[in-house]
């Protein structure tokens, strides 16, 4: 009742609120509810004409607005269609009084005082989508599901390390804030983010069966139409590119997907036809189960339908392509089956093509080349302890053995987006491609670039994380930086990208590149005058478009020695630093030595991005 009452009270301007705080719409939470749960806690205003931090007073209710659950449980929330009720404020006051009086829940009240609603709702979007009171959700279900009430408390850690609390059946976070902390118990482990990754890592077989258990049925199309379309292509003069990747690049947005869109248009501009195959269900491994794979088929960028791999092979064979008419381009075979892929390529009459090294899946089961998802220390050679320790190497299959069949069957040119990735490929020394070539997706070229924002010497160093907050991209390291230095006046933190994370003292700006706006990230970096981008990838990036965007946007880069091409581009441009490890990063922020990377303290970065012709540079 309180939310509806508040919405209609006149103290809240929904339109203004949504426009002023664009992240609200993305949470999917009703704006008034968002304000009560999140906004007011983080100092947001309910209307444009109110001073910050003064909102609750405006509507003449107790400063601590009651948690919605108590009131809501007493009287159901009205639907959005219900009109304003002039008596609502009085009714709400009575509900508040009841909830603070006789029906007061000390556990709820104490948990709510220390609970980070913003963190909870962004970390668990299902809770946000359900529209329930997050504190009540945590108390009733969340803690049992291992969810955390804030960034500074790990429910799982506390439960595992305090069996007496579990035995007593007390909510662990309540116990911690009410007693545990004073008793000297710790709320969170100090074992680092890699420990969490390892603790959650499942054996490969379990990962695969879990992913497959969530799959729905695929509606397969009649292969007659496919055959007709392929016959048309076969009878038309010109080359046909048979392309493979891990998903539908026309639907998903990401670095590789945008490159594929660009590549498609370049091929089309050259007069080549483009047939693209992707697995109906994605999988971060080759599918070695032997099951027939369902593939989506895009012909010249348009979805023809989903077909079984053998049906596609049959149609390609019957289409009657001329010898040499079809060349293949393998961007990724994750989710594909190798034997079925070989059959499809052979059915098209193709004998040669190229393989992109966007990731390391051709040489290792972990496509990021990480040992147990936690660390990169070179290619894990067979017979080494590094490989023996890795859950990925202990799978029942070996990607390298799978790719061996591909290499022994076709003439394959290897295309690497960076020399760094090619060096790693050559270090592994597994296959002999017909040729190897480095084709950078983007090249940085010197140019005079006007700085978008004036440079203020002495202003806080603007430090940013670019992209989706993923562990292998170093988000936990950035998060730790914000937690340690968020209130340090020398620094100002920014997150540019999708997937806002709450509970951190930073400014988030939604940035997503589209086919029409490829350089959205560069623009965003420029717009906020970012001084330093923390590109702390823990895997050897084969390219990392973001690094180029950061540099072209005028930012310097901070990275670590394992970050692959990010290291190479940082060293090549001299814009930034490669620090030995996380301890050195935190130390550089503590001492302030990192301030030398401020825009005001260095020459302006003067680079523009030039996009390459991708596979067209290799496929004649």
């Amino acid at each position, binding site marked *: 009742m309180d939310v509806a009452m508040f919405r209609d009270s006149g103290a809240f301007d929904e339109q203004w609120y949504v426009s002023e705080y664009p992240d609200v719409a993305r949470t999917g939470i009703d704006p008034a509810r968002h304000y009560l749960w999140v906004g007011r806690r983080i100092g947001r205003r309910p209307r444009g004409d109110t001073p910050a931090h003064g909102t609750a007073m405006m509507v003449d209710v107790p400063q601590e607005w009651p948690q919605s659950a108590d009131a809501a449980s007493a009287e159901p929330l009205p639907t959005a269609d219900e009109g304003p009720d002039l008596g609502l404020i009085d009714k709400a006051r009575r509900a508040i009084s009841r909830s603070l009086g006789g029906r007061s829940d000390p556990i709820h009240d104490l948990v709510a005082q220390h609970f980070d609603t913003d963190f909870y709702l962004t970390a668990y979007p299902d809770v946000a989508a359900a529209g329930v009171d997050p504190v009540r959700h945590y108390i009733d279900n969340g803690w049992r599901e291992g969810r955390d009430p804030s960034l500074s408390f790990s429910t799982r850690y506390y439960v595992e*390390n305090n069996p007496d609390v579990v035995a007593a059946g007390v909510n662990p976070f309540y116990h911690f804030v009410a007693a545990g902390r004073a008793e000297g118990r710790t709320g969170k*482990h*100090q*074992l*680092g983010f*890699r*420990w969490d990754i*390892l603790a959650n890592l499942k054996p490969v077989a379990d990962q695969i069966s879990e992913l497959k258990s969530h799959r729905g049925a695929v509606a397969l199309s009649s292969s007659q139409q496919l055959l007709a379309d392929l016959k048309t292509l076969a009878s038309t003069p010109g080359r046909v590119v048979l392309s493979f990747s891990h998903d539908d690049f026309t639907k998903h947005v990401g670095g590789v997907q945008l490159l594929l869109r660009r590549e498609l248009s370049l091929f089309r501009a050259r007069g080549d036809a483009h047939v693209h195959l992707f697995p109906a269900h994605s999988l971060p491994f080759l599918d070695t189960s032997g099951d027939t794979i369902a593939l989506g088929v895009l012909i010249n960028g348009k979805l023809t339908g989903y077909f079984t791999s053998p049906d596609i092979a049959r149609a390609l064979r019957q289409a009657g392509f001329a010898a040499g008419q079809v060349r293949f381009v393998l961007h990724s075979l994750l989710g594909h089956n190798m034997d079925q892929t070989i059959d499809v390529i052979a059915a098209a009459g193709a004998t040669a093509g190229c393989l992109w090294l966007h990731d390391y899946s051709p040489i290792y089961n972990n496509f990021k080349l990480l*040992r*147990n998802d*936690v*660390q990169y*220390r*070179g290619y*894990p*050679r067979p017979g*080494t*302890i*590094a*490989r*023996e*320790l890795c*859950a990925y190497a*202990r799978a029942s299959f070996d990607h390298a053995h799978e790719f061996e069949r591909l290499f022994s069957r076709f003439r394959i040119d290897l295309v690497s987006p960076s020399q760094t990735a090619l060096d790693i490929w050559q270090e592994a020394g597994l296959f002999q491609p017909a040729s190897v070539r480095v084709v950078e997706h983007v090249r940085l070229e010197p140019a005079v670039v006007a700085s978008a924002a004036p440079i203020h010497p002495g202003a806080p160093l603007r430090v940013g994380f670019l992209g989706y907050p993923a562990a292998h991209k170093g988000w936990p390291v950035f998060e730790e930086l914000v937690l340690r230095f968020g209130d340090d006046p020398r620094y100002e933190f920014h997150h540019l990208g999708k997937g806002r994370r709450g509970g951190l003292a930073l400014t988030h700006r939604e940035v997503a590149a589209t086919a029409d706006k490829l350089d959205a990230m560069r623009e965003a970096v420029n717009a906020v005058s970012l001084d330093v981008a923390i590109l702390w990838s823990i895997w050897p990036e084969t390219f990392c478009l973001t690094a180029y965007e950061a540099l072209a946007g005028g930012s310097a880069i901070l990275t670590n020695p394992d970050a692959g091409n990010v290291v190479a581009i940082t060293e090549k441009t001299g814009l930034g630093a490669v620090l030995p490890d996380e301890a050195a990063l935190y130390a550089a922020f503590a001492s302030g030595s990192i301030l030398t990377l401020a825009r005001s303290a260095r020459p302006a970065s003067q680079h523009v991005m030039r996009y390459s012709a991708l596979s067209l540079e290799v496929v004649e």
Partner: protein
Amino acid sequence: MTMRVLCFTSFTFSYLNRARVLFQSLRRHHPDWHLVALMTDRIPAGLTLNIADEPFDEVVWQDDLGIDNLAGWLFQHDIVEVCTAVKGPFIAQATRRNFDAVIYLDPDTCLFNPLTPLLDKLQTSDIVLTPHLLEPEEARAAIIDNEICPLWAGIYNLGFVAIRTTGEGARFADWWARRLLEFCHDDRDKGLFVDQKWCDHVPVFFDKVHILKDPGYNTASWNVSQRRIAIDGDGNVRANDVLLRFWHFTKLGPLGDTMTRRYARDQIVVYELWRWYREQVAKATSPAIPDRYWAFANFENGEPIKRSHRLLYRERKDLQAHFANPFSPDFAAWLKAEGLA
């Protein structure tokens, strides 16, 4: 000249899984060593122990050690005491066999690299011991756990000892065997801690003793706070920049996890080693062995033996004389009649 090495571990069937993992690692790194499983137990019903299928070459049972009044002697020890006690008589026996060196490793250790430098050390030394701790601790909690604990439990960790079968090595083996047959007790008040505390005397009593201060040996939760564990560029694992030779996976379970977390802190490789080890042990587990099985845990009538029963029998010569086989229902009945069951 290649050294002829006998390597053994001492355990009961509930530790067969761990011992298998150790022996597999020994086979891998030292295929020429003679591997002995020293077992103080009886084969559980339903389990077939076929040596040809096991990663060791020989089983030596408690019955093979020439111990007088074996049943009474066994009864005087709990499982930890007895598994450490038998190390003495066996190591002495092994010195009289056709080997140049005898190495003992606890069943919960595992090799990651060959022990070749140890063999080199045995060219000039007759006894090699590894201390629990190689340097002083700084943090108070670590001083209590890692410095004070060895003050009563023993400076050297007897999860490992290596000896030459001749000279001082043989002399040590005979002395240790005699002491362990009579005094291998967990009795802090008397200054005893099984086989381990005795070895504090070793550097004084014997010559040609080498105290191995290589951090690659016998790394465990009690010393990992002083060892930087990392994977190197060759994919090998190092402790303070030297190759990790063997890890002591002490206390597989929640307690071991707690101690590891406390002292390994954010050293991720340590947790990866543990994760791997846990999987290997699970793979090496025979489901036919009942949980916490030990043939000498109960009286012959199936009633559990309490530690107090063992201590009473250990102290009372009259009981030892009267109940030559204290596992018999007679002794259980006597205890019951005395209100001690």
